[in-house]
């Protein structure tokens, strides 16, 4: 290993902390400090040696966890906005062969055993021949916060930023499927995208939805994100939006929609993205893919995040205001409560504007002027069907659904 490489790595490790340890480091690391993200101390220590703030083409600097396949999460500061800007939206791929898609020649084929009249459509068809619908929805990786799991489990070691909230515009999937004429025997709709594996033996990333979710009026094929074309790394020219459900179903660079009369049997359905049966309070089922031991992951669990203050220090004599966001699997956030005594007593925060039941919901609370010392703040969201966040995340083999109450340890100085 060249010496310069050792130095760079070592400095990066040092710079990855929330503050520089010594003034003399400031000049030596100035170039690197801009690249070193602030990382949660609960992440595996190996993350700090590799994580960098780096911009993919067409994107703002994000926290790079893996180059190939690209896995980049949004820094915490991004979530001060209820709507996540396109260039700051997280990037997550399983497979590394990601072609640049030309919208002029791109087609989606719609067929399968369950379709009576297979067809294919292009970008203009999608925009002009189907009624456009818009909705705001959270796209959250099933494994968001996996890196905070205790004990750690293998996989991409995400912090809190493998999620984003956008206004999606597209065509209803059910309108597209209507043109293909579904047979009564259809039980699942499967989706494939343009991205593929590095070696042929790796199973292509193909996912299916139960028919009922595919026919939901809110399930759309989106060609706009926050009023603009989708960024390449977020699925240009069109991706599936399965609002309320985790991002594993939100197929990017959509190329094929298949009406199936038999359950999709592949690695991505049968082995990956499954949770132990009855472990989580999920209410939405994917019956054709269930086994006695485990089930496919379905809707997002109710969750919250403290987005401000970003600093671990607050000044005494100043009013302390806490801001955050809350979201769930599409039932809608009913309340967010704050505790300063480890969860013994809770006070309601004020909810911000309602952008729809699939969206982030802003919240805010003033804690007055706390005295000098340590303040441990907990935030807990509840949804319209009475679910709320557990005090600690529920362990499971793949580290999915991490939705423990949000926590901020502040020192008032």
């Amino acid at each position, binding site marked *: 290993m060249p010496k*310069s490489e050792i130095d*760079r790595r070592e400095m990066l490790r040092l710079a990855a902390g929330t503050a520089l340890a010594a003034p003399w480091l400031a000049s030596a690391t100035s170039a690197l400090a801009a690249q070193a993200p602030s990382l949660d101390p609960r992440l595996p220590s190996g993350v700090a*040696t590799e994580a960098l703030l780096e911009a993919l083409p067409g994107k703002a600097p994000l926290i790079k966890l893996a180059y190939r396949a690209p896995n980049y999460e949004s820094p915490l500061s991004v979530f001060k906005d209820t709507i996540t800007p396109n260039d700051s939206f997280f990037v997550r791929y399983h497979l590394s062969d990601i072609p640049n898609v030309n919208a002029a020649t791109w087609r989606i084929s719609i067929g399968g055993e369950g379709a009576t009249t297979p067809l294919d459509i292009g970008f203009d068809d999608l925009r002009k021949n189907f009624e456009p619908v818009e909705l705001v929805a959270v796209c959250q990786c099933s494994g968001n916060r996996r890196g905070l799991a205790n004990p*750690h489990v*293998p996989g991409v070691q995400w912090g809190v930023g493998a999620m984003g909230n956008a206004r999606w515009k597209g065509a209803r999937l059910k309108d597209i499927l209507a043109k293909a004429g579904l047979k009564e025997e259809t039980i699942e709709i499967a989706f494939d995208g343009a991205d593929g*594996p*590095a070696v042929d033996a*790796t*199973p292509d990333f193909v996912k299916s939805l139960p028919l009922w979710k595919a026919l939901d009026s809110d399930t759309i094929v989106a060609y706009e994100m926050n009023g603009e074309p989708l960024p390449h790394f977020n699925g240009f020219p069109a991706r599936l939006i399965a609002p309320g459900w985790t991002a594993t179903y939100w197929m990017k660079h959509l190329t094929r929609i298949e009406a199936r009369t038999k359950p999709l049997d592949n690695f991505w359905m049968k082995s990956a993205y499954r949770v132990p049966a009855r472990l989580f309070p999920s209410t939405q089922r994917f019956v054709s893919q269930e086994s006695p031991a485990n089930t496919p992951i379905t809707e997002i669990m109710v969750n919250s995040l403290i987005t401000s203050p970003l600093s671990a220090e607050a000044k005494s004599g100043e009013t302390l205001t806490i801001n955050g966001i809350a979201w769930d699997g599409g039932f809608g956030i009913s309340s967010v409560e704050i505790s300063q005594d480890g969860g013994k007593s809770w006070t309601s925060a004020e909810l911000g504007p309602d952008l729809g039941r699939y969206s982030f919901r802003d919240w805010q609370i003033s804690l007055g002027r706390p005295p000098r010392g340590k303040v441990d703040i907990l935030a807990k969201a509840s949804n319209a069907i009475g679910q709320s966040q557990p005090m600690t995340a529920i362990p499971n083999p793949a580290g999915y659904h991490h939705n423990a109450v949000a926590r901020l340890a502040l020192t008032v100085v």
Partner: protein
Amino acid sequence: MRVARKFTAVLAFLLAAGSILHGTGSLRADETEIVLKEWSGRDAVINNCGACHSLDYIKMNSPFLDKTGWEGEVTKMIKGYGAPIDDANAKQIAAYLAANYGK
């Protein structure tokens, strides 16, 4: 700093190029800066694991897996993801990962 980075990138690329070229995924320039610990089996890791994914996946997932845990990961890559790795290489890779990136 820029010059130093370029220099190490070129060096690392020369080390890695021969082994990663058969992957069809695009090789990003900065990926070549990832350095794995010198230890028996390192080449097998670079040649096999690096064919499909960048090696930061390994470092990111450390140090919390024991030997059984790393063996499980190698098995998952072969059985689940279809990685064409023979038994001898699989054993060598798991041993390397457990010794250098295990708990």
